[in-house]
């Protein structure tokens, strides 16, 4: 059952990536092409998911939206991973004052409800795809820093690390060649869950009107537009909602599978 679930997740993610990569090939219409006369058409052969308020083809918009969702998820969490791994491994390896300063900083950041912090920063710098990726990245590295630090604390007493040190390898070499590769497992799991979280986060921000700004079609803002036509255009609210649900689900399934694979004790 476990493997089947994980496999489902992987298949969905692969399909999504394909959709995102080949969006211009698959889409029948330009996602920003406006045709007022065809506004709010229900799903049909012509428009698989119907059209929105401005007569744009929803299926094409959803396809291009998958690019934004994946980009935001992967870039934002990638940034968080880079920061988290860097700070966490420095803290874990050097220990002492450096460790306590870095981890204290992480503790402080963890005290803030993430959404509050993100909203505050968006209030300041304004919403855009770029800003949202950076902000999510800057506010979600703490968990990963803790994970890698814990791994490194145990790894650094291993013989081969001590050996390297005795042989005169630089700290940078030891950290990047020995410690991080061996301790990255939990971070990887956390990364996959993080992507799911970031996609949900963008949707939530869009719902508040603080997410990706139109005309860029993100699932979040398509959904937000759908809100305005709740009652006459069920398709505008149904499809993006489902897309978010399924994508987040897929990443969570993958994350769960990875975690079990890395932690065979619990099965």
């Amino acid at each position: 059952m476990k493997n089947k679930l994980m496999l489902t997740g992987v298949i969905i993610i692969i399909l999504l990536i394909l959709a995102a990569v080949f969006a211009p090939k698959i889409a029948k219409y330009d996602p920003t092409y406006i045709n007022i006369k065809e506004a709010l058409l229900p799903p049909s052969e012509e428009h698989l998911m119907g059209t929105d308020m401005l007569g744009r083809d929803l299926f094409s918009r959803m396809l291009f939206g998958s690019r934004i969702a994946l980009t935001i998820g992967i870039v934002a969490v990638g940034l968080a991973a880079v920061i988290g791994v860097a700070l966490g491994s420095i803290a874990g390896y050097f220990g002492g004052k450096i460790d306590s300063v870095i981890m204290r900083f992480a503790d402080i950041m963890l005290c803030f409800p993430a959404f509050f912090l993100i909203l505050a920063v968006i209030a300041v710098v304004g919403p855009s795809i770029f800003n949202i990726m950076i902000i999510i990245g800057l506010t979600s590295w703490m968990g990963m820093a803790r994970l890698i630090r814990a791994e490194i604390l145990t790894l650094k007493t291993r013989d081969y690390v001590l050996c390297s040190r005795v042989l005169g390898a630089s700290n940078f070499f030891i950290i990047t060649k020995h410690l991080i590769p061996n301790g990255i497992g939990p971070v990887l799991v956390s990364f996959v869950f993080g992507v799911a979280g970031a996609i949900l986060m963008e949707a939530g921000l869009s719902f508040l009107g603080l997410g990706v700004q139109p005309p860029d079609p993100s699932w979040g803002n398509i959904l937000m537009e759908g809100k305005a036509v709740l009652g006459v255009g069920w398709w505008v609210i149904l499809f993006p909602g489902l897309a978010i649900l399924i994508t987040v689900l897929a990443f969570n399934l993958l994350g769960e599978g990875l975690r079990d694979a890395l932690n065979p004790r619990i099965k």
Partner: protein
Amino acid sequence: MIPILFGITLISFAVIHMAPGKPTDLVTQLNPKVSMEAREKLNKIHGLDKPLYVQYLDWIKKIGRLDFGKSFADSRPVIDKIAERLPITLLINVLSIFIIFIVSIPVGIKSALRKGAPFDKISTVAVFIGFAIPSFWLALLLISFFGVHLGILPVSGIVSLDFEKLNLLQKIFDLSRHLILPVFVLSIGGIAGFSRYMRQSMLSVEHQDYIRTARAKGLPEKEVIYRHALKNALLPIITILGLSIPALLSGSVIVEKVFSIPGMGLLMFESVFMRDYNVIMGILIVSAFLTLLGNLLADIAYVYADPRIRYEK
């Protein structure tokens, strides 16, 4: 503790003051009759014409006295604005924690005990969906269905318009009706998460030596599970629950907006749109403080639940 509190104030202040533009711009919407002069008057009143570090020092001195300054939007003390909004947010969050607890623990135990049984499979699927569903989407679907289509639950707000005329029992009933959907939406992620943790926790405890010993001693299965396994499985849950307070608070922004609940989350949203810096900083600090408090409570609960840990000194 002190450095953490200091760090919290520094981050809150730093985040807000990276901004171009002044918060007073918003009070003076685009109205041809609003002059530049009026804006400058407002800036002066709020001390925005001073250098940044002076503003920070002024601000931090006041925070010691629980004075978060005044809101730019309506010139009321920030602490008053937060104080009138906080109780309802706390109520919803506490209710959610309660719901999360009473739903996810039995679900987690049952899934763990009958691993692979239909219940475990169904609950696993439900858990994953609960994790992945966008909360506002769910909220809108629920309002449309229960509020508009069936007409059995109120659409928004926390009390009916004629609340004052109701007697106590009716008041409680009215409030509960209004809170059903918001609390459900706020707890759904938590329920999913905690049933999962609980299941894992139970599974890992089950393989521990003392459980095997208990079983070997021939203790009845019920006693093994509820006296020994459960107690130990609950320990990590308590910690995680304490740590989940920021997530719950985060969720309250969206839930309060969809359901028109005048809590702290909604105040945050309004203030972000109005660039009401003082209120945003105030909320950041109060929410961080609540998180610290939650962690502290979790620690205490942990000590209480686990006799092995005792504070010394």
